[in-house]
């Protein structure tokens, strides 16, 4: 199969690679927002994860160590946000923006000596038997471990939020923190944990860029992907499966538009360039409009909790 030089199988496979950073970061942010906290620092946590992961993987020679360090780095930076908003009760929006600035600067500082350095390459992890399925095999089952992990994370986040007591508490905190507090739940503790989880996921997303998708370190390597992840959470109306759709749609159309350009499609290039943003917004707005409005946001989103 081949449409004007574009092989759909290869296209779909590379779509998954391009989408994974957005998916990881957006999924983490969704959990944070579900707990009632708006952390706009995703970009900062991502780039911090990207640099921490890169350094750790270069120094240790192991991409796995890199990813662990990236999650730790992202979570650690997120703790700064937790400290500001949950302990000192600062307003969340400026704190999140500040976190991005801190993260970008910190990453640039840490990465100074790692420009032009090559990281160990991550090996692909084809899944035996499944990889041999025609068409589906090459698309779905011949990736690196992080792609599988991101899909697994979608299922886990969805299931935990929907079926478990922990998920129920998290959602209760996000919907009405006063009531949750009255019932004896530790609102702040839940939120700090959620913020830490969001930071770790953003860190992983960043490291996916610096270790697999690009792979190298340069300043500003995340180039705004954190902001797209933030937007996707809103358009996906805080639902894990829709976050997946949004991230794949965005990543997919990004890759598709590059392929269309290379194939010489008779579409204005400017339109192609802008299409990922347009298509993602349109599709997700339509989905959420069809299921009783887009107002699925947690009621306490961005509000400061003061225990009385």
């Amino acid at each position, binding site marked *: 199969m081949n449409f004007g030089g574009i092989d759909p199988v290869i296209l779909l496979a590379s779509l998954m690679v391009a989408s994974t950073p957005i998916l990881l970061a957006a999924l983490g942010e969704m959990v944070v927002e579900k707990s009632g906290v708006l952390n706009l620092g995703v970009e900062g946590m991502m780039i911090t994860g990207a640099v921490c992961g890169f350094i750790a993987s270069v120094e240790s020679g192991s991409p796995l160590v890199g990813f662990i360090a990236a999650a730790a780095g992202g979570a650690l930076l997120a703790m700064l946000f937790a400290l500001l908003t949950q302990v000192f009760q600062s307003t969340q929006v400026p704190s999140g923006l500040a976190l991005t600035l801190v993260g970008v600067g910190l990453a640039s500082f840490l990465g100074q000596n790692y*420009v032009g350095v090559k990281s160990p390459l991550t090996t692909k992890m084809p899944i035996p038997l499944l990889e041999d399925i025609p068409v589906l095999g090459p698309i779905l089952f011949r990736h690196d471990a992080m792609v599988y992990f991101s899909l697994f994370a979608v299922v886990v986040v969805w299931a935990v939020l929907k079926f478990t007591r922990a998920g129920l508490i998290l959602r209760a905190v996000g919907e009405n923190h006063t009531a949750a507090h009255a019932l004896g739940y530790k609102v702040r503790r839940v939120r700090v944990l959620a913020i830490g989880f969001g930071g770790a996921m953003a860190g992983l997303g960043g490291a996916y860029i610096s270790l697999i998708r690009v792979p190298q370190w*340069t300043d500003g*390597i995340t180039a705004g992907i954190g902001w797209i992840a933030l937007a996707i959470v809103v358009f996906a109306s805080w639902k894990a499966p829709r976050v997946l759709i949004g991230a794949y749609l965005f990543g997919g159309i990004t890759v598709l538009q590059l392929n269309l*350009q290379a194939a*010489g499609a008779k579409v204005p290039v400017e339109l192609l360039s802008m299409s990922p943003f347009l298509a993602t917004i349109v599709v997700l707005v339509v989905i959420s409009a069809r299921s009783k409005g887009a107002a699925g946001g947690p009621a306490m989103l961005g509000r400061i909790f003061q225990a009385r």
Partner: protein
Amino acid sequence: MFKTLLATTALALGLAGAALADDEKTKVGFVYVGPVNDGGWTQGHDHGRKMLEEHFGDTVETVFVENVPEGPDAERVMTQMALTGTDLIFTTSFGFMDPTINVAEKFPDVKFEHATGYKTADNVGTYSARFYEGRAIQGHIAGKMTKSNIVGYIASVPIPEVVRGINSAYIHAQKVNPDVEFKVIWIFEWMNPAKEADAAKALIEQGADVILQHTDSTAPLAAAQEAGGVIGFGQASDMYEYAPSPRVSSIIDNWAPYYIARTQAVMDGTWESAMTWDGISTGMVGIGEITDAVPADVKAEAEAMRDEIAAGTYHPFTGPLNKQDGTPWLAEGEVADDGTLAGMSFFVEGLTGDIPQ
């Protein structure tokens, strides 16, 4: 008593002002579009800045601001620089053109030099390198080396500089390989490693086995390396860390001699607005070592072309050449004039696709 105090203060302030103005050091500012360690364009300019400091030692002070967006912010940065007593300011991206002109109007005593632009004023000069000379050599190697006859080109922003590069590379690839086809992807940014990597992958997936890039990061080379069997070139900096393969050669910007000469002119009071456009002959454009991944005969031809261009005996835009729509542009043996090259906004015959407007 009070009046005396006031007068003394005024005098002291006046003296301080005079002391500042008399400062012996020549202050040179640089406005960069990317980070100084991007491994490409901005790093090249910053290398020039460091060489400048080394050359003049204590008599020169340099300042720089990196990651300056091309827009109103640039104007703010330049104004700030001019206000702090900078004598000469280099603004090193095409998008800084109008901001440079605007700020220069407000500071007639400060000299400005804008890289790759075409607007000048009494205190604004422009400078650029004839990168297309280097691209001709890349195109030759690309045409000779491609087995799939598909060459991928990652284009940044649709300005004459980039269009010229595509044309030059294509003309010379096509000359040695009539079957060659160029696939061009525009990413509308000078530097975005993730996008560059995705673009390189898309091109490779569509059969390209040579990747040319007009973007500043090494991401396309990393993608080429991962894919295997694909070659690429260093852009702006040597990018030698990817040699001998996928990086088989490079176009290196060497701004240091120019920066030193212009600063010297300011010191001597001989600075005048000029439009400088130098290439391989003066060393402003350097051709990075052609590695052994390139067959010896191709390497020899490429080096011969480099030497001919340097000697002025060969011009990369020599007719017969037609425009993309088939209208004649240059007659047999005719050489393109600098005016046309500077404003080039058309593809030559054989290239497919449109230039975004």
